[in-house]
């Protein structure tokens, strides 16, 4: 199985051309394996979550807590649509389904780019950046989860802030991969005729283009796996409340209190009365992290 495709340029020098299409199948398989493994793990292997700690009183928590505002939801679904169009137009021809994919692909690419630009501005100006920031708390949250996974600890990892660590990690991974795909994709648009310019493959050297194509390819196939996982989690029964929140924007009061630590995801009344969460920069939660048993547990 090849990883990369290369060819001899007109001077006989070896030059990267792109990724080998086997990687696409690899990515699909990786996604499927993850889904199956995770499904099996949750179904049969994972120890039941210890009963939640006493119900933390949640006074002042409204019946419906806004998790995703309308603009961010619209952004999410628009981006998802563009992403889907991009993946389909990129990989269906490779599997043999022939159709004029180039125009749809670059238009979807432009749409994706615009949505991402909007998202970055929206996040910086209107959203709470820190909710995505991975702080020390998250590290402990993560290490707890890992310890539990490896059966070295029974303890309960601290409640998440607005976004649990796996969400944050996933977001950042997807962000990096998408940015790579977008940057290389925009540059590669110089290789096709558009209403605005004619193709000019000599904008970069052919070795530079080779790297561009490989990165675009790698990020493309990485997105396959990421999106397979993303959709899988979205449809898992126990995560449906999260999926609902991306549709309607709110989660129920119990779900908020069950999954989130009000200290870290502080709700305050927005001007329109709806409650927007603000990630509190909580100090290390006293005690909670230290009861992890030393290694060599049960």
């Amino acid at each position, binding site marked *: 199985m090849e990883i990369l*495709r290369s*060819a*001899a*340029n*007109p001077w*006989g020098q070896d*030059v990267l*051309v*792109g990724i080998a299409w086997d990687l696409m199948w690899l990515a699909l398989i990786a996604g499927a394996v993850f889904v199956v493994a995770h499904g099996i793990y949750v179904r049969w292997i994972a120890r039941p979550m210890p009963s939640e700690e006493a119900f933390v009183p949640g006074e002042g928590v409204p019946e419906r807590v806004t998790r995703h505002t309308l603009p961010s939801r619209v952004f999410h679904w628009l981006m998802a649509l563009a992403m889907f169009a991009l993946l389909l137009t990129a990989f269906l*021809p490779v599997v043999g389904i*022939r*159709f*004029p*994919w*180039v*125009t749809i692909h670059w238009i979807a690419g432009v749409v994706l780019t615009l949505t991402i630009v909007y998202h970055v501005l929206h996040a910086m100006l209107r959203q709470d950046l820190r909710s995505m920031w991975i702080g020390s708390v998250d590290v402990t949250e993560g290490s707890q989860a890992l310890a539990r996974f490896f059966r070295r600890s029974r303890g309960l990892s601290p409640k998440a802030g607005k976004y649990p660590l796996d969400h944050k990690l996933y977001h950042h991974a997807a962000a990096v991969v998408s940015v790579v795909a977008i940057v290389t994709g925009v540059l590669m648009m110089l*290789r*096709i*005729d558009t209403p605005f310019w*004619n*193709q*000019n*493959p*000599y904008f970069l050297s*052919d070795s530079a*283009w*080779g790297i561009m*194509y490989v990165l675009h390819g790698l990020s493309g196939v990485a997105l396959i796996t990421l999106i397979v996982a993303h959709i899988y989690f979205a449809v898992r029964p126990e995560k449906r409340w999260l999926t609902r929140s991306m549709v309607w924007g709110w989660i129920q009061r119990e779900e908020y209190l069950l999954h989130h630590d009000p200290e870290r995801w502080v709700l305050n009344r927005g001007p329109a009365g709806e409650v927007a969460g603000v990630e509190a920069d909580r100090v290390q939660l006293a005690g909670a992290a230290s009861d992890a048993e030393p290694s060599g547990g049960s």
Partner: protein
Amino acid sequence: MAVIRDMMPTFELLQPTSVEDTVALLQRHGERSWVLAGGLDSLDWLKDRVKRPETVVELGGVLELRGVRPTANGLEIGALTTLSEVASHREIVERFGLLSTAAGHVATPQIRNQGTIGGNISQDTRCWYYRGGWPCYRAGGNTCYAATPQSMNREHCVFGGSRCVAVSVSDTAPALVALDAEMVIRNTDGERVVAAEDYFLGPDIDITRMTVLEHGDLLTHIRIPSTWAGARFYFEKVRDRQSWDFALVSVASAIVVAGGRIERARIAVNGVAPKPMRLPDVENLVQGMPPNEDTAAAAGELAIRGARPLRHNDYKLPLTRNLVRRALRDAGA
């Protein structure tokens, strides 16, 4: 590794004598096989070692695919019928003169004696970057070397380019599109029939192929309906030399005139796009109009609307316009 040209590599030669055996062989050898009919296009690739099949399936023995037979409503031509036979076959000359004229304009007598009509419409493009073995899009790479600001693209396309700007060079293809012919394709799964216009692929659909044929497919017959039999035909091919050369631009048209007006028309041009380009807008425009100079001029202008010339092929615009004009003018003569 170093490159060498003009020296055929070794391959295994298989010579089936029936369509069944042929499609079976193609199925078994898959991507490593190559179909060879007349061989004029194939040997160009094999001798330059740019394409390296392990197995060549030579169709000289499949006699059932040679010859012309009348059908219920037209003619059926075996894909292995030589261009010389097509150019001189009485039935074709009398009822579908457009095709016999086109076949007679291909390359040279020796090539017409050996080249087949199936091969002529299924041949690969002649872009000299691609034929030179460069790693261009069409060869699986990621660059079209013919569409850069410095490229030598005098013989490339002004319509329908999508990253790749090569042109279809077949002379019989526009004639078959104008005659609304159909292509019969066989493989181990069975037979499918494709309209001439849909037989050819542009780079937007699949940049590595000029036709719908996939590995394992065999073009067996070309069926021409009688819809355009006896219409007023016009074929012209403009080229640098009067033998050997492919068309810079060619036009093939079938026009039925009744009562001094164009009842229906079907016009195709080649050498301007990655596939033979039918001109439906022009056909609609001229319908019902008298075949005079004004109609011809209007048709010509419309034919080149939306063209997007490259660095060196702007001349193909007036040339295409004038050829369409001449086709319409001829309808009135």
